[in-house]
């Protein structure tokens, strides 16, 4: 790779990072808190590309040093992630990834005392919140309330749909699903569609087939298809 081509590769790579972090695309891959660092890294890459071109054009491509040697060829590979972001922009992790790992409930931080839910019905709750309250507090704070959960559909081992959301600690490579089983009204949405589900606490708990951790259930009273939220991960 000669230096001008290297500069182009750096422009593509830095530009891809900048474009992803200036739109919401980066939220499919990493946490929101990484955004300022992504923007800074993208700008630095563009600056390095600009300075490479500047020195290259000023010296006319001949600085008299290191004749007859290669630049690192491996650098070509950097156009793969750049094009991955610019051309494909793969979607956030979905049902396929969720089916491969066990529910993240085992890693959940368990409070000793669960505070009462905020007023209003239905109460919007994250899947993690519902699952920890249902499993570790036997649903004491959930009983008698109308609850609204948002997630995507993934298939349970018994073939019925399960409500799922991925949690991410750092990037999608460490993404773990939180699964909530659905009983009551049948939710017949295809796999990977996002839904709002309204329902009440159910005491039913089944083991996750992958890691045997507890998967709580929700008794569905109504549901509605929706679009993917801005932040796909919890």
């Amino acid at each position, binding site marked *: 790779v000669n230096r001008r081509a290297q500069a182009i590769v750096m422009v593509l790579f830095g530009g891809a990072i900048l474009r992803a972090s200036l739109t919401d695309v980066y939220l499919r891959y990493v946490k929101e808190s990484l955004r300022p660092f992504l923007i800074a890294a993208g700008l630095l890459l563009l600056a390095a590309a600009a300075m490479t071109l500047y020195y290259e054009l000023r010296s006319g491509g001949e600085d008299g040093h290191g004749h007859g040697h290669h630049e690192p060829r491996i650098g070509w590979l950097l156009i793969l992630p750049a094009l991955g972001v610019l051309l*494909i922009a793969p979607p956030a992790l979905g049902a396929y990834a969720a089916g491969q790992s066990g529910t993240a409930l085992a890693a959940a931080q368990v409070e000793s005392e669960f505070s009462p839910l905020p007023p209003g019905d239905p109460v919007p709750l994250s899947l993690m919140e519902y699952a920890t309250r249902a499993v570790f507090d036997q649903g004491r704070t959930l009983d008698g309330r109308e609850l609204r959960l948002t997630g995507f559909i993934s298939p349970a081992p018994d073939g019925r749909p399960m409500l799922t959301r991925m949690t991410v600690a750092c990037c999608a490579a460490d993404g773990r699903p939180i699964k909530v089983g659905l009983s009551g009204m049948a939710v017949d949405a295809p796999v990977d569609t996002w839904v709002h589900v309204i329902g009440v606490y159910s005491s039913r708990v089944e083991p996750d087939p992958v890691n045997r951790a507890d998967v709580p259930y929700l008794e569905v009273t109504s549901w509605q298809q929706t679009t993917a939220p801005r932040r796909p991960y919890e």
Partner: protein
Amino acid sequence: VINSESATAEPVAATPETPEPDSWRIGSLEWLAVVLVLLLLVRNRLAGWLSGPGLQTWTTVFVSVMVQAVPFLVFGVVLSAVIAVFVPRSFWARALPNHPALAVPAAGMAGVILPGCECGSVPIAGSLIRRGVTPAAALAFLLAAPAINPIVLTATVIAFPGQPQMAVARGLASLVVAVAMGWLWLRLGRSEWIRLPRRPELDDGSRARAFWAACRHDVMHAGGFLVLGAAAAATINVAVPESWLQSLAAEPVLSVLALATLAVLLSICSEADAFVAASLSQFSLTSRLVFLVVGPMVDLKLISMQTGVFGRRFAARFAPATFVAAVLAGAGVGTVVW
């Protein structure tokens, strides 16, 4: 088009140094343009080809690992360029103890103050060696920096609520491995195993020019190897379902080896691996500690980057030795604590 640009390039020891013929031929810039135009033409079909759920998940994980690593890579590269260009050699002589055996633990402790992923510490360690720091100390720093910095230890405390001994055991075992590997290098290491790329542009011309040349070179070089590692990690992530592992969880020795191998293959960044370890709840705490000690020191993307920066002969010896040391230290500390 005259091929003069690539003829002025500086050498890289990892690739054979064959002279480019000074002739008219199509250069890399033209190839790049052709590839980009072709890709733009098939752009709409591209998404269709990648629509299978496994392949799509692979692409998502691959892109995520790269996006996550970019800030750490770029800041590591900039810091290593600053070390290579602006920090005088005499600084390291004054900052580190003169005796190499003492410089190793000092460099290991210095890792505590550099928060960052492992992707940044590889080029930094290369720069340190180039600036005259004894390789043993630079290697101790390389191993310690991603494993025992405050961000990683805080993440470990959060991931294991009610078990602060996990973070303590992790810091302790990681420091032991880093220092032990430094001392082992002093006894057994040979300097000819490390082949740092020659970098003539660092020694002449203006400092600003040398700085940007170092940045460009390291981004392209370390970044390229990072792409290889990210692709391997994404493949493992998609191809190995977690249920395979669960059958090993009951065996005490096998579970340690299984999670140590998983840490190498998954190549999760050190700030996140504690959360993954916490969710592997069927495994013993000792085997999960081994997972946390091995991961930041030996994994696919690190091996790939070390091969690029230090040479194949180095990586082929250093990575397996570190793996053994990390498994022993993790298992040892785990047995004492639990």
